[in-house]
């Protein structure tokens, strides 16, 4: 997905008219966010939560919760177990 959007960004830069460029860039930005927000949770269907079956109804819903729980837990301790700088989450670039 990243490659597709990177390609689109590169193509957009060649557009001649600034106004058209702005519209397309806005549209691609929204699509990128939309794709991430909508495609990932397709795996999740659930209604309530009291036991494994009632909670998710399907294994994939529980699996998504497990993955989310793992990332949330790792994010909470990231930085606490190192020198405060966290893991290599910035890819060597400076943060904001």
């Amino acid at each position, binding site marked *: 997905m*990243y490659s597709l959007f990177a390609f689109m*960004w590169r193509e*957009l*830069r060649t557009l001649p008219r600034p106004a058209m460029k702005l519209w397309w*860039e*806005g549209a*691609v*930005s929204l699509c*990128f*966010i939309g794709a*991430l*927000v909508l495609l*990932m*949770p397709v795996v*999740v269907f659930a*209604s*309530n*939560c*009291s*036991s*494994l*079956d009632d*909670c*998710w109804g399907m*294994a*994939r819903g*529980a*699996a998504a*919760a*497990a*993955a*989310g*729980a*793992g*990332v*949330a*837990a*790792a*994010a*909470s*301790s*990231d*930085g*606490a*177990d*190192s*020198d*405060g*700088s*966290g*893991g*290599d*989450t*910035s*890819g*060597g*670039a*400076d*943060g*904001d």
Partner: protein
Amino acid sequence: MEEAPKVSTEKAAERSRKLLARVGSVEFWSIELPRLIDPWTPNLATSFADDAWLAPWPKVAAYGPLLAALIGLLTPWLWPWMVESYTESVIFLMLAAGGAALNWALGASLLAAYVLGDIGHVLFRSTFLTFRTMGGHAVGYLLLGVLAVRIPQLAARLASGIRLETVDSALRVRVKAALYGAVCAGLVLLWCQGTIVLIRPVFTWPGGSPTDEAIMPVQVHWQWIVAASAVAAVARVILQHRSTSQSSIVSGVPELRETPIADRTRKGSAWRGMTAWARVVLGSSVLTIILAGTYESWMDPVIVLIVSVIAGLWRNGLLGKVPPSWMELTGRIPPVIRMVIVPFAGYLFANFILNIFWSTGSLRPVMVGALVTVVLFYVFFPIRSQRSRVAIT
């Protein structure tokens, strides 16, 4: 004789005015407070210091965190639909996720004030307060901390790993906005999915069961929370760009922005004073508490603690050495891509074992899936020294 009380009242009023003026200033939120807490809670200090980018709009910078603190403090008392936990309110979760993405200081002050307000509320309405009740709520605070403090910081670090090499600054800002928005949205989505199970201790530790009202907002209405975070993140990058361009004409703003950064030697100094082993064990203990919602017996936290300590020691190079070829490989993959790989691989593994053990009804496969995701996170984000970071870039 009548003069003395009058003088002391005037002095008290003067002191109050000075205190109010100090708290209602951008310098307090972005310099004084971060400096005070930086050695102990560097992440929270970083969040408060983030207020500096709003310096061209001093009133917003000064009163924004105060307003967020007021909301956090009063919500447990006054919000009618919030009884046991903050997850009962989609609006509060939207405010927390969106506010934190917009300005990290908003998330930090909302979190700190909510913790105080909720402790007061629990103490007020409980005739018999137990350790289990407060422990359950403490797990909830840690989870809120991930949403309001850790996610925006992590998203910024991940998004900074990809940069568009172009001279067109407007295009660069738009790409940055889209990327920060997307990463915030993705992380908040994962948080919502994880919170379905991780918020359970708030209810199960005092002996109850999670209510539908507390789970539905994160399980069914997560779109609103994710959307609030994404929109706020995009708005933040655009506003920050405007703030930077205005800074050149507002005197003192560049200095204000540089001041907290200049104090990096104190950052987390209390943590750095500890041995690496102690830091790993402490970090793993926090992780073990966070995953409490997935436990079925006393054995589960022991397994999580042992596995996370071993993985943490390996990650820090204290238990064997991370292979240099793996370091090099992970260094070449943008962090945001690795952050997509980790939960996806964790999801596939969890889905596999859940399908096998589904009929048992046990939550343990969820715990195993979460633990494997944690280990994958450590493997894909090894800690490299500053020197090797420079070498790779």
